């Protein structure tokens, strides 16, 4: 067991190091000069060169990589070229938007998906099941940014219930802040709920066909009790796996949605940083997201190993 965990950890660390090299290399070949961008049309070539030196852009490649990667290890992400504040401060502000958004979306998707999955599984093959799964098929097919546009049109432009975009900041109060996260969260949650609902249904059906469920029913336990108490609990593993994956996806997948709603979140920051060639910000956020994905995968792996020792041999 320990050996297995150790191996997974080493692999995760290696993946991180490789990823950091890939990210750095990508940023290196990205066309465009951040210094020229900051100084504009009227600046002379000498001025641009001067600023490049100041920004440390003219140091040798390997040195810059080591400097950056070394900083990461000490959790020092460097300073943003454009905002000239520490990257960590920027990230902290943005995570305060993206993380709640991802969490709300995840909660919404779970709240919708689990009951639908249970409902469908318990009425397998009947009209209700067909209808619910048809709706789920539709949900999977809807691009979330298009769904977001429709939501904006209905609830912001037409009904004026929520703002069409923007984020007032948590300082403006919990409710106004939450209000501006509702539509984006719904837009993110729907396709995820559709996927999760399908997984929950098939996992539950699989479990309900197991012998011990039949035994429980034979003992005269009511169907509902069997379904919720035994069935759902045992169907939780695949559901949780998907949830973990979805969380990682949501953290990064908010890029487009944050752009639709003008939310000052991580996704928007990274998009802006790419266009402004704020390379250090891009590198740091990508690494942060990659690390999050790796960590979640690691946790999923560990939980598998704990639940089902047979899996360890197969990895």
């Amino acid at each position, binding site marked *: 067991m320990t050996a297995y965990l150790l191996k997974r950890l080493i692999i995760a660390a290696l993946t991180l190091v490789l990823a950091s090299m890939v990210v750095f290399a990508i940023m290196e*070949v990205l066309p465009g000069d951040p210094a020229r961008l900051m100084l504009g049309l009227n600046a002379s070539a000498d001025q641009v060169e001067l600023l490049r030196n100041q920004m440390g852009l003219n140091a040798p490649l390997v040195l810059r990589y080591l400097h950056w990667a070394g900083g990461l290890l000490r959790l020092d992400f460097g300073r943003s070229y454009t905002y000239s504040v520490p990257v960590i401060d920027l990230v902290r502000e943005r995570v305060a938007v993206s993380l709640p958004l991802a969490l709300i979306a995840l909660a919404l998707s779970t709240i919708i998906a689990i009951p639908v999955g249970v409902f469908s599984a318990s009425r397998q093959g009947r009209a209700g099941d067909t209808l619910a799964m048809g709706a789920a098929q539709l949900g999977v097919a809807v691009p979330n940014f298009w769904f977001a546009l429709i939501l904006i049109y209905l609830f912001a432009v037409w009904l004026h219930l929520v703002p069409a975009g923007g984020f007032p900041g948590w300082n403006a109060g919990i409710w106004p802040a939450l209000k501006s996260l509702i539509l984006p969260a719904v837009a993110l949650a729907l396709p995820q709920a559709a996927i999760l609902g399908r997984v929950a249904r098939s996992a539950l059906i*699989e479990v309900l066909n197991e012998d011990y469920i039949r035994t429980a029913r034979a003992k005269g336990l009511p169907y509902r009790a069997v379904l919720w108490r035994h069935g759902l609990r045992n169907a939780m593993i695949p559901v949780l796996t998907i949830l973990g994956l979805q969380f990682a996806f949501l*953290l990064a997948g908010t*890029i487009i949605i944050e752009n639709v709603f003008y939310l000052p979140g991580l996704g928007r920051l990274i998009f802006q940083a*790419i266009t402004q060639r704020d390379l250090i910000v891009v590198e740091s956020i990508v690494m942060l997201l990659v690390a999050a*994905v790796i960590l979640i995968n690691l946790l999923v792996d560990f939980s598998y190993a704990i639940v089902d020792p047979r899996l360890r041999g197969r990895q």
Partner: protein
Amino acid sequence: MTMRFDLPEETLAGVLAKAFSNRSFLIGLAITLLIVAVALISFVWTPYDVTRLVIADKTQAPSWVHWFGTDHFGRDILSMVMVGARNSIAVALVAVGIGMGIGVPLGGLAAARGGLADEALMRVNDLVFAFPALLSAIMITAIFGPGAVNAIIAIGIFNIPVFARVARAGALAIWTREFILAARAAGKGVTRISIEHILPNIATLLLVQGTIQFALGILAEAGLSYVGLGAQPPMPSWGRMLFDAQTRMVTAPWMAIFPGMAIVVTVLGLNLLGDGIADILDPKSRRRR
């Protein structure tokens, strides 16, 4: 979700009979054929020329003259949706091709050789999977510039590990079969066995994964085009049309509705088709669905 398949040991007639009684398959097939037909028709005929801008006719609501209305340049949206189908299908199809063409041999190789080759492949897979796909696609197009070809590459790269993983898992199961042992005993080499025996037996698995990735590819292309990184004008694309529509939701909602519906219908059709195929070829399907 993991999918388990047993070899299709039924007769062709049996499979066909199942196919024609499978609702998902039939609806999915009908939609997919419809979209492909629309895309093909657009090569020879569209109601209007999509490269011609008629500023005087801009943002007209749907009418008998323009069934889906016109966009901000006065182009006919129905025509653009038709031509856009071509673009979406092409991008998604080639991206699946890249994924299969590179991923399947890699996965097959890893399964056949095992050991270091297998380990290396899985580590590279880990690496690619660690990057959020959309983010990497944005970075790739930031380097090479936006455009349909680069969108294909960006989406295709992420299909490679998917197919490698599916092919590897499928192939590993087959390698333990008796008929493989027999083939080995007959002196056939690893490559030959992979091509002659393994590949046909994982083909259905790949087909199902292919339709899933195809649908995902259409969504990904729309997403990339939506942020301005996909096909470039004058070539219409569904995602781009949605981007143009976004700022005009108040004044011209039809600009958003029709291309969006096109994406939904296409992805829905492909997903139903994939589900249908899986149902038909999976002996356990009767129980699960």
